[in-house]
């Protein structure tokens, strides 16, 4: 019987939940870094 990938969607989704904190932290740090660079440029 062919096993459809969708059958493991729950497992994949749980795996993604471990990834989410990394993505949030990376994006937040990138955003913060950009803000600081802009603020430094403004100060000259």
């Amino acid at each position, binding site marked *: 019987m062919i*096993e459809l990938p969708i059958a*493991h969607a729950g*497992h*994949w989704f*749980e*795996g*993604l*939940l*471990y*990834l*989410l*904190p*990394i*993505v*949030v*932290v*990376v*994006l937040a*740090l*990138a*955003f*913060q*870094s*950009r803000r*600081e660079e802009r603020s430094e440029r403004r100060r000259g």
Partner: protein
Amino acid sequence: MTRRRLSLALGGAWLATMATSFLPDAALAHGLVGRQDLPIPRWLFAWAAAVVLVASFVGLGILWTKPRLQKVDERGVLRIPAALEYVLGAFGVAAFATVIYAGFAGTQTATANVTPTVIYVLFWVGVPFATLLLGNFFPAISPWRAIARATGWALGRLGIRRPTPRAYPEWLGRWPAVIGIFAFAWVELVYVNRDAPSGLATMALAYALFQLVGSAVYGTETWRRNADAFSVYFWMFSLLSPAHWRGRELCLRPPLSGAPQMAAVPGTIALLCTMIGTTSFDGLSQGDLWTGTGGLAPALQQRFINLGLSADLALELTFTIGLLFMIGFVSGLFRLGLMGMRSINHKDTVQSLGRTFAHSLIPIALAYVVAHYFSLVAYQGQAMAFLVSDPLGNGANLFGTASASINYNVIGATGIWYVQVAALVVGHIAGLALAHDRAIVKYRRMRDATRSQYWMLAVMVGFTSLGLFLLSTSA
């Protein structure tokens, strides 16, 4: 966002995705007995750990404004007599000889022979655990060091002039240790006959002989500090310990303060990445993605079998690829952090930053060891009670403890999970603290120091999530 930063962010996310999002949750038990009874889903621990790391990072930025670990005072508390050093050396040689003898002469049933448990549990995991408390005690009991020193002493007494040791090549650095640790991990995680007592005894003997040759050529202490894989491995963990042995004197120092003193000679970063990567692979290889139905390993193994390899060889090749992949993955994650750090000063090279911040990987390596092998020590470590009485597995009862058994109620699966989570979180906070302390020295402005560590924070959160994910798949 600059293109460079965006690519770094995406690269980090991709690397993490490779290890986490594609991996299904598994229920395979390894060294655990019973089900975990957790109040929240396991993935929520990864979120909580990330929050703790970010909070710690903010706390470090606000409260830790001066270097505290770069130069510290040590206080001598104890001095052991010279005779004890000889006794410990003799004990190490006797224990080594017993393990070798048991491996060859004892039963070849791995669980009934003392050799596999001594090597995989006491030596490989137990010594790092003990080192964290007692400092670097391994040189005192190292059998090959004791034999090398005894040989040198005997030759001196006989009036035989020893050749002057050669200068150890600077470029070689800790690369022999990298090869040694990789080889050990390969045997432990990949080799099909990993538990065979006679095979282990043969390899231990070969390793000891190699150490003796190296000691003869380059000098016992020089060789031990650079090329004796296990001495270097245990020494690195001892840098985190508050106990520091200066010869025969025991000194106390703040925890972690030994790590900044580590010179990142060639091979150091590779060694640390190998240590973390091999432990990570141990976790990965017990999960469904790797070994389960439709997992990567069976599919890859089948391809190698189709190419004409035997089942065993195909399996070893498959696992070797997995092992190398995990080491490469860990190296890539660390490199991404370094590349991000370059945004503060583009004159810095990734290599120079790597050497500057390499020591921050030591607590992560130890955290991975504790998290992945705590259950092994907690359960299989108890087997020493009966194995020491019957080392050959032939029915002897030397100390009257041959009938002892493993108590699996000593700690439950839930307790083990909490220990693992705590080890990972504490280890990564320690890594952050070490990197932060070094950044304050490297960058003149506190703001630059903190900004340089944004990327290290991302790396630490990545390592923590990866570690928790790997543990969850094998729980």
